[in-house]
């Protein structure tokens, strides 16, 4: 019997450049302890392709945003505590928190709770974070993303 080996191209993994949180308690503390900055958490798996794309963007902007946002990665298999609460069933989920409060964003997708796809553009992500930060500082629970991501414009 002939064996067929399929070669999977190796992808770059940028996740090692960002801090990981390894327990539910750590996630809670990260959100609670940050007073002045936005907390951005990416839920997913480091090995997931969508996550890899997202991590690429996150890692590249982490240094740029460090004055007003901090980025953490959470493995949803290692830390399943939030899966039901935040409905984490997408390959990659990015959520924003400010002073222990979840900030919603109107992305035009219908799901205002999170970014559940991989953003490819750094500047777009920076713009979203700035908007979220501005809104959150003013006490808003829902901000409107600078760009509409609804599929209406894609098709």
């Amino acid at each position, binding site marked *: 019997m002939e064996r067929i080996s399929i070669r999977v191209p190796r992808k770059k993994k940028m996740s090692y450049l960002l801090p990981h949180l390894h327990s539910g308690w750590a996630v809670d503390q990260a959100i609670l302890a940050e007073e002045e900055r936005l907390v951005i958490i990416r839920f997913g798996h480091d090995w997931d392709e969508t996550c890899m794309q997202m991590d690429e963007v996150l890692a590249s902007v982490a*240094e*740029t*945003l460090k004055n*007003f946002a901090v980025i953490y990665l959470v493995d949803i298999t290692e830390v399943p505590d939030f899966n039901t609460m935040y409905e984490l069933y997408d390959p990659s989920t990015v959520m924003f928190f400010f002073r222990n409060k979840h900030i919603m964003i109107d992305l035009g997708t219908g799901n205002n709770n999170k970014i559940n796809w991989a953003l490819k553009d750094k500047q777009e992500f*920076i713009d979203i974070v*700035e908007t979220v*930060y501005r809104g959150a*500082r003013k006490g808003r629970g829902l901000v409107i993303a600078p760009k509409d991501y609804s599929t209406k414009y894609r098709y």
Partner: protein
Amino acid sequence: MATLADSFLADLDELSDNEAEIPEDNDVDAADMEEDVDGDLADLENLNYDDLDSVSKLQKTQRYIAIIQKVEEALKMGSDVSTQGVDLEDDPEYQLIVDCNALSVDIENEIVIIHNFIREKYRLKFPELESLVHHPIDYARVVKKIGNEMDLTLVDLEGLLPSAIIMVVSVTASTTTGKPLPEEVLSKTVEACDRALVLDSAKKKVLDFVESRMGYIAPNLSSIVGSAVAAKLMGTAGGLASLAKMPACNVQLLGAKKKNLAGFSTATSQFRVGYLEQTEIFQTTPPSLRMRACRLLAAKSTLAARVDSIRGDPSGNTGRAFKDEIHKKIEKWQEPPPAKQPKPLPVPDSEPKKKRGGRRLRKMKERYAITDMRKLANRMQFGVPEESSLGDGLGEGYGMLGQAGSGKLRVSVGQSKLAAKVAKRFKEKNYGSSGATSGLTSSLAFTPVQGIELTNPQAHAHQLGSGTQSTYFSETGTFSKIKRT
């Protein structure tokens, strides 16, 4: 007549005498100058002489003999230096070293002259040899060994030349066009070879002596550039004291050769580097940094020379410290520049905005606000095709502008602030009529339907505000459609 002619001739003679005298003087001057300039060339002319002694005179001079003798004595005595504390300039050994430096330069020149002599003679026997063996001393040795032998396989050149060169030399010798030399010429040539070898060994002796004493004369300088280069620097500068008085930029040029580049660029030829290029530091530096390293080296060796000239540090520690410093600096130059860190963005809204609202800003906004005409052109009425610049919807569309129902082909410009300003200025210059409305405006409108409409300009004033006819969303519409009666 004759007397007059004679007198004229006499005058002419006198004149020509004067003229003849002056050029003579010039000639003499020129000859003097030539002698000065062509001192080196005179040596070359001598090469044609048959007699060796008339070519090389150095070995017979009193100076050469005296110095070599002194050096030999000093070398025999060894390096037990007992003259510590004596002023350096008065030290006889120091004087000897300065003389040695001068002598070594002379010996070098002498060897070149003798080399030319040997070549001249030996060319008849083996013309290709001079192009195969370039170094004067090697050449002299090989010539002495070969002599008049035609079959080179019988001559053992092992130890004189690298084996590859020996191979080439013996192969070339088998096909050479040379003839054996007459006995007299050969003996002269061999004698010249001997003399070159003796001079070479003398030069080595002198240099060994100088180098062995450099550690005592200039410990700091020689620990930076090495004793050989230090000796050469001192020799060219004319002693340690004058080296110490020299600025660093001149030290850098000591021993620099005048190169004839034949019009080529000076960019890559190590043009302005003297003896310092023979230092170990210079040679280990990458070529792109060599000029820089050379400047640094010159500066530090000048400092070291100054320390040495006052015998400030006989242990040579200062020099070694300088050397370490130079090494560190050169290494640092080769480091890549630090990686550029991304600049973090400022916190949004962290600073209050500099620009505030106010009368001025409001005025400016008013002045540059979108006009009513543009507003109309940007708007479409529902279910009514717009006019366009090329017709049939081609070209630039006019929107609601100039549509039949609106009766507004030409929109009279409302009393905008900008217009008022312009009008005011206009008036100040005493032009035109007194009224604010221009004489060109009219309530007559020519529509594309080729009719003339006479409309009330005020009737449609409301319509400007909104494109839609007073619906729920329009600006003119009221909240409730039911009018109170």
